[in-house]
């Protein structure tokens, strides 16, 4: 109790309030824990596991054993470490694509909404046009263009910086995917932010800030954009699982991550081939994938409730 009193005296920010509300939401807290554990395994434990690309044809389709905890795949590769390494790619795709799309979306939407008039019309027609083209088609084209470029980059890095070829290939292989998704994911967010900014710029505190002598851009970036962060954060959290799904879809179609690199999408695709004979190849990646998606979706829902200022502040 005494803690709470000192809290209010020190001044609670909206973020702190949100966190307090969030903590009461059990599902959201559980989701944070689940997602953290998944990340911990994928990014830290994975380094101590077996090489996910080591082929051992003599030991293919083996069941769970002390050597291979959940068995091996069609080429005798350890499924457990393939899931963890695949998780790295999937989670990174989600996070990086979200970061890229959120950055572009906020700036684009904010500028359009703030300046309004002709600038707004032109900028929003561009968004409408991009929206009207099927998402997957653009990703496929971009992916083709960017992977050419990524191969060249890879060669350049290996010859000029003397990086390890396997490592460089693994990074440059997935980069185009990150950006292709991120470059297109901002459309919805741009619309959300634009609508927010358009209503915020009529608010009195913006007039007040202008009447203090701040420049237009300072007003926009210091006063208006922080006020749009609530909806943006929620949208961002909800779009992470969306991007993971897209990565899975693209990889499943053979357009995403290339073998021998793994991702959850690839593992599911490969597992689907052996559904009748060795179903664990589909089931294990599928379970992890679903759990992560669930966690992120619940987290997004929790954030939406927590950041809602109209909710009671008890």
């Amino acid at each position: 109790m005494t803690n709470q009193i000192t809290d209010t005296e020190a001044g609670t920010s909206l973020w702190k309030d949100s966190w307090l509300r969030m903590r009461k939401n059990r599902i959201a807290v559980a989701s944070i824990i689940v997602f953290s554990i998944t990340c911990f395994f994928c990014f830290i434990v994975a380094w101590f596991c077996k090489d996910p690309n080591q082929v051992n044809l003599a030991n293919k389709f083996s069941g769970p054993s002390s050597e291979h905890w959940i068995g091996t795949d069609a080429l005798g590769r350890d499924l457990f470490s393939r899931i963890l390494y695949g998780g790295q790619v999937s989670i990174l795709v989600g996070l990086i694509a979200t970061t890229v799309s959120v950055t572009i979306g906020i700036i684009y939407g904010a500028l359009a909404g703030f300046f309004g008039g002709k600038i707004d019309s032109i900028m929003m027609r561009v968004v409408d046009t991009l929206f009207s083209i099927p998402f997957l088609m653009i990703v496929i084209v971009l992916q083709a263009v960017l992977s050419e470029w990524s191969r060249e980059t890879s060669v350049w890095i290996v010859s000029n910086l003397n990086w390890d070829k396997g490592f460089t290939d693994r990074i440059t292989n997935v980069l185009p995917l990150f950006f292709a998704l991120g470059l297109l994911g901002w459309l919805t967010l741009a619309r959300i932010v634009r609508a927010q900014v358009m209503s915020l710029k009529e608010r009195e505190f913006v007039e007040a800030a202008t009447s203090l002598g701040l420049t237009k851009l300072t007003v926009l970036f210091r006063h208006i954009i922080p006020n749009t962060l609530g909806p943006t954060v929620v949208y961002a959290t909800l779009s992470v699982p969306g991007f993971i799904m897209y990565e899975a879809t693209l990889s499943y179609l053979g357009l995403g991550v290339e073998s021998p690199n793994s991702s959850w999408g690839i593992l599911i695709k490969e597992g689907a081939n052996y559904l009748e004979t060795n179903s664990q190849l589909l089931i294990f990646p599928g379970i992890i994938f679903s759990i992560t998606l669930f966690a992120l979706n619940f987290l997004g829902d929790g954030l939406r409730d927590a950041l809602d200022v109209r909710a009671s502040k008890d």
Partner: protein
Amino acid sequence: MSLLEVNNLKTYFHTRNGIVRAVDGVSFSVDKGKTIGIVGESGSGKSVSCYSLLGLLPMPPAKIEEGEAIFDRSTDLLSCGEKVLRTIRGKRIGMIFQDPMTSLNPYMRIADQIIEPLCLHMKMDKEKALKKAIHSLDEVGIPEPDNRINMYPHEFSGGMRQRVMIAMALITNPEILIADEPTTALDVTIQKQILDLIQTRQKELGTAVIFITHDLAVISEICEEVNIMYAGRIVEKTDTKSLFRTPKHAYTRSLLKSIPANQVKGEKLYTIPGLPPDTSQIIRGCAFRERNQIGDQNQCLTNSRPEFKEVEPGHWVQNCPGCLS
């Protein structure tokens, strides 16, 4: 010459439904350290004329068609351009707004908002600015300012927020303070405190105040000179005493008559009938003719707009025979 001289200001809004003549030829002046009031109904153009001075209106649709506003004998606020205006806004002319609940940024600490003008105009470093900000919060009567300054706006009450706004507007010692209905959103007990506060700070700093309101009681409390606005024009301009003692124009008299305290108990309260004219239509003749019950409606001008005339020394009024009778 006065500190601020506004001559024949015309601000029109070019909307889809035609041109709205929100401010249609307004002139007034403010002397150093004095307080003038601008009174009128909603939509009479009182806020728009002050927003025009500081360039706070969105353009388009707003456009300043004509006029000048000479500040400190040298700068025309209406034509000096955004860059020059920015050095005046918030430094030499401060402004406080109607609704203190919405005029502070909810996502920023009071500290960060209040030091903005200091860092911007005085080029102060953050520490010095904070010290000054705490001092100025103390001056507007906020208890424990060194704690309070780190709070967010939603932790303050309406009256306290208006105090913060006043502290913020006065922190750079501006020569003019524009107060746009600063007490309208507050309850009566707080209104008095805020008015007293504005007056005390004004006396201490020698600031001139332009006070926009629709509350005549507030005017009688703090203003030295009053401009009554109607349909984008000033209909009467005089010192406060003669406004209440010898109001000339029918509109002013109707306004005074509709103050509840001046009416007979038990009878129906007097209101001015009808609505202010639609300023998107060209008004021929006297704008108040339709609603004129106190004067003689039939004598009101119908063909030409009444001229603004000095009928007694210092007492100007729109010269319409129907409204003056």
